[in-house]
């Protein structure tokens, strides 16, 4: 977490030098030189570049004294390659009520015979459509766009929802030559501000005097300027790319308007906690009522707490199926029963209420899922969390974190999206506290293969796999991704060139482990009295995972992984071991990844290959990517190891 925090908040000296391409930033003042530009020197692979971008956000009184949020946006984009033309298509969503988009201007500039020719987009090609209930979008495409075009677009967005200020982004998936942004805010609205990204803009704070009728007030201005911001590409092993874009986030802490009562929002976590305690989230986790009483007897089916929780879960899901949604605010139990299905938050809320009715401590835990980005404790925000799970405590103080809805999870097995290091626990009695969900138990995959070989190189074997902790969740989710068992088996066969029989996997089994086993046949390669045996039936990791030469964002692994693999081979009569793979122990230079391979003879006709893999790091920073890449190559190479047997 600490390393992550440092990466995200890294305060490098702000960009003080001028932009690579000099230009007149005023709207309409595109120069022939900009239109003639053939490539962007700092990044010659870029298919387009933002030459200049200006965003002005203003939260102020309108002429009838209501507070409004207005955004004036202007962007000038240079199309450099064919696939850059898609940056000339625009779509702006807005709420059907209380928001509007207007003053849209789109002009394309092209250099033709040395002269700048400008084409404006006609109003009739700006489309405003209803997308779905409550949401509209304005969409349009710049006219006459070619490779080399410079497109200017400007518009105004107005919203009555002044309390939510979207992030001001300083980075995109194409490079930015020059960006400026001003955020004006009424003195009565106190926003906290957090800036992130490895390169940060020059920042200045100022204020302007204003008047509304007889009332004097001030607008505080945050100004940002930056130059030559590189693009941030989309990369694999990343849960939320947006969090790594350089940006400024604002979160409303309070509204203090003279003559009106103070409204506090999230100025510190205590105020967030207070709001949670007063909300339906808390209420539905401590509910009472007929439904709760009817479910209580289910707890009698178990002796241990674990058994009681599982029995109660079954009883709840008998009445209310999980609808595959996560939800956040639990619904009342009566509504859930009526609908017959509900989201995970509601199921967890109902479970907590029943447990509490039986004097078992069960409290809500709010989580910001990994897909939403890392939660920075120093940046308090009302919308910090999006998931609700439970903390169930035994009488001896052991805590179990639990998402009752997930068919693949268990007590202290949450699924990769919820493994964060700062979730927020809300005990009924006691103060809220930060909890770490990343180290709830050991995640281990243990595989044992027993294989025997005949002289024609035909092998028969049995493979048994047991996965514990998050590894079990991962195995179950993968198995569930196939609509039929046959498809899953087919995939396993193809991977290892196997013919599988007696496949045993219970996809309905619920617990902290998952078991999979099968018998198989396979043929090894033979030549001139030798048999070449591959001790690994399949690779545990993909060779393609880190093929990119560079990395811009951290690599995020699903969980801290451990694998123990043991392969036992009985060699045929009349053969001897000519060569075993050499033992190896390899550590990733700058990260906590490690593997070991050991091969040994076991008696006259036995061979054992032991492989251990360990990854203690859930995140690898970009500066350590080169080491990870080299380590990964060696790791994937191990899976191709070969034992050589020779006919005596």
């Amino acid at each position, binding site marked *: 977490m600490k390393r992550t925090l440092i990466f995200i908040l890294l305060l490098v000296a702000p960009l003080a030098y001028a932009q690579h391409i000099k230009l007149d930033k005023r709207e309409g003042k595109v120069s022939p030189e900009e239109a003639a530009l053939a490539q962007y020197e700092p990044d010659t*692979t*870029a298919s387009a570049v933002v030459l200049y971008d200006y965003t002005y956000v203003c939260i102020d009184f309108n002429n009838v004294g209501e507070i409004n949020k207005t955004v004036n946006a202007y962007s000038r984009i240079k199309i450099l*390659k*064919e*696939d850059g*033309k898609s940056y000339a*298509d625009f779509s702006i969503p807005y709420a059907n009520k209380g928001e509007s988009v207007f003053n849209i201007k789109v002009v*394309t500039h092209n250099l033709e015979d040395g002269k700048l020719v400008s084409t404006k987009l006609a109003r009739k*090609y700006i*489309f405003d*459509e*209803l*997308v*779905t*209930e409550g949401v509209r*979008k304005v*969409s*349009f*495409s710049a*006219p*006459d*766009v*070619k*490779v080399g075009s410079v497109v200017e677009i400007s518009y105004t967005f107005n919203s009555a929802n002044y309390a939510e200020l979207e992030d001001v982004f300083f980075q995109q998936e194409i490079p930015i030559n020059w960006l400026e942004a001003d955020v004006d805010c009424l003195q009565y609205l106190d926003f906290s501000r957090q800036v992130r990204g490895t390169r940060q803009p020059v920042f200045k704070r100022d204020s302007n005097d204003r008047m509304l009728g007889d009332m004097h007030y001030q607008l505080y201005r945050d100004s940002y300027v930056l130059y030559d911001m590189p693009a941030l*590409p989309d990369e694999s092993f990343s849960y939320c790319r947006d969090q790594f874009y350089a940006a400024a986030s604002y979160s409303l802490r309070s509204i203090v308007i003279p003559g009106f009562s103070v409204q506090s929002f999230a100025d510190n976590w205590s105020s967030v906690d207070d709001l949670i305690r007063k909300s339906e989230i808390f209420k539905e986790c401590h509910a009472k009522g007929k439904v709760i009483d009817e479910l209580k007897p289910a707890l009698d089916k178990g002796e241990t707490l674990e058994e009681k929780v599982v029995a109660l879960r079954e009883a709840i899901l008998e009445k209310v199926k999980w*609808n595959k949604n996560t939800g956040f605010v639990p619904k009342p139990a009566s509504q859930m029963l*009526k*609908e*017959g299905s509900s989201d995970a938050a509601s199921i967890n809320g109902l479970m907590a209420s029943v447990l509490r009715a039986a004097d078992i401590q069960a409290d809500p835990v709010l989580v910001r899922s990994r897909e939403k980005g890392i939660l920075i404790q120093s940046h308090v925000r009302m919308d910090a969390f999006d998931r609700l799970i439970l903390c169930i405590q035994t009488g001896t103080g052991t805590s179990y974190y639990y998402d009752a809805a997930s068919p693949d999870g268990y007590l202290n097995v949450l699924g990769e999206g919820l493994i964060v290091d700062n979730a927020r626990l809300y005990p009924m009695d006691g103060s809220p506290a930060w909890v770490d969900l990343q180290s709830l138990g050991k995640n281990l995959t243990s595989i044992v293969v027993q294989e025997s070989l005949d002289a024609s190189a035909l092998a028969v074997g049995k493979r048994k796999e047991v996965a514990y902790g998050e590894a079990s969740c991962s195995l179950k989710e993968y198995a569930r991704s196939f*609509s*039929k068992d*046959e*498809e899953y*088996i*087919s995939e396993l*066969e193809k991977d290892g*060139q196997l013919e599988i029989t007696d496949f045993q996997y219970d996809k309905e089994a619920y617990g902290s482990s998952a078991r999979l086993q099968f018998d198989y046949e396979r043929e090894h*390669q033979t*030549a*001139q009295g*030798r048999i*070449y045996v591959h001790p690994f039936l399949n690779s545990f990791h993909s*060779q*393609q995972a*880190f*093929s*990119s*030469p560079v990395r811009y964002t951290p690599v995020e692994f699903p969980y801290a992984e451990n694998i123990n693999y043991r392969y036992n081979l009985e060699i045929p009569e009349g053969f001897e071991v000519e*060569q075993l*793979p*050499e033992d190896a122990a390899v550590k990733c230079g700058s990260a906590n990844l490690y593997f070991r391979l050991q091969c040994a003879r076991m008696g006259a006709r036995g061979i054992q290959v032991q492989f251990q893999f360990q990854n203690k790091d859930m995140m690898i920073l970009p500066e350590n990517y080169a080491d990870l890449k*080299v380590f*990964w*190559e*060696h790791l*994937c*190479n191990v899976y*191709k190891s*070969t034992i*050589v047997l020779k006919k005596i």
Partner: protein
Amino acid sequence: MTLLAALLLAALAGAEPDAVILEDTETFRMNSPTSGEFTVSQTFRVNNEEGLDAASLVLFTDSFRELKSFKGEITPSSGKPLKIKQGDIVFLSLNESLADDARVYTYRPSVKQFPMVVHYEYKVNYRKGIASFPTFAPVSGENTAVEKAVFTLDVPEGTPVKYSAGKVEYSVENRDGRSLHRWQVHHLPAIRLESMMPPLRELIPLVYSSPVNIDYGGYKGTQADWTSLGRWLWTLQEGTRELPAPLVEEVQAMTAPCSTRLEKLQVLYRYLRDKTRYVSIQLGIGDLKPMAASEVAKLGFGDCKGLSNYLKALLAAAGVESDCYIISTDRKNLLPGYASVGQMNHMMLAVPLPELKDTAWVECTNPVYPLGYRHRGAAGHEVVLIKPEGGEKIRIPAYADTLSRAIQRTEVFLKEDGSATLDLQKELWLDELEPYLEFGSLPKDKQVEQLTQALKLQGDQLVVNGFRNNFDSYASEGAAFRPCITVDYSMKTRIYANGSNLQGEADRLFVPLNPIAQAVDYQRAERENDIYVNGFLDNEDIIVLHIPEGFEVEALPDDVAIDDAWGVFSSSARLEGDTIRIRQHIRLRSCREPAQRYADFRRFARAVNKAYSATLVLRKKQAAA
């Protein structure tokens, strides 16, 4: 249908499908040539979670169709019905175009108490024109059986209609000044979806119907046959091909030096590529009527109709005739005896080139396609040329299967530590070149991504050394033209071969025979449907491996040669001095075989995959005694 009755039926049915359509009653009542009402009543029994897809509502509307009313009910196994209101259904814009008035209404039951019965009733109003009646497709999901489904087309007596219904039971009745055309399906068993199966439309009941005479968006015509439909489409295009005078002059100046029609086409096709791009706008009759050529000229964008119409106008200004044509890029054959614009999803331009004794079938939405090439969405397809005298149905010539090929040549300079430098070349013909048409203009990282995505090794320092094509050959070869793209590239890899010692000097190197080949996909299970392979595959890999100094061959994989109903496959590895020449060649044939033969196909696929994943073994030379 009560829940009890539904459950009784289930008990009688035996092994259960995921869902059963107990009754599906659909009626389209035509009130006038431009208006009508579509009334639907459907009842599903959902046996498990997989059956929810079949019982989900998916309803499309646009500016010609409006959802007028909806109600529904779910009766779960607990027995107490729950009402579904119109407010419970979600509507979304289709979001496939820049602007589109098409919407989809969806509802997926959230209750999960199985078995349960789901019932919908809704009405859709048709207005401003009817080009086709609703398609009757009662089967909506995998493993879904049908008890009874009926579609009634209720039109004023004497209204000519046409339909394509396969073997669906049909009857017609005249009553009270109305003609009632009725199609019925009873006791249809569930269908299982499998890979390599025949197109679903061959297996499920489908009824397409439409009025012969149409009045759509203010345009009247007939679609009795392709001739009359083509004439109607021509009228939609009237007035859309005028170009501004300066543009006409520009076109004439650009093409003045050209001496042949092909040269003029080449100049204007390049102009189209440089000046326009594809943007889809489907509003009102805009999904059938092209944007005016003058607008396309001004905006620099258009959809397939707009761009085809625009190029036709440019060619006309240069004195070259051409015809827009409508095509389905999904299906090679149109429904026999049934002309309807609804079968088509695309428009292109046909330019006769008598000097080459050929016609160029021009893809205007993506002018990177070489002229003279018939891409895979067009070659062999039945299409309808839109001419002033009416539509003309023809078939675009197909290419022989054997002409579409991919050849990968690789020279591997292997080192004793298992690392290697590779010089590679891809040579791609016809269908195989399509993913690489825009390769030359991609940024380097995307080129690397495209070249390495299927590799079974990690490459470094990939450099593209050359990208060329033979697209200019059309001028000399005419109808015999076969486009080809060649990409030359090189790369290094730290681990090409697995050494017997990971951290030091290896005395053996285990070398993958072919780290580039793609496995043949197959499934494991017993099949129900015929095996249907549509399209030909011909991939050849030629690898020359330089043996590192001090090493010799210990083992080479056996040769493989297979020739059966599925195709031909060969694999060989030969020692030639200090190199090993590896050749693997697969040719899969188009075929249709009964399901019982799938075990054969699986054997074939496994044998091929085994050969692809074979290794050869090099060993350090022993010192002389």
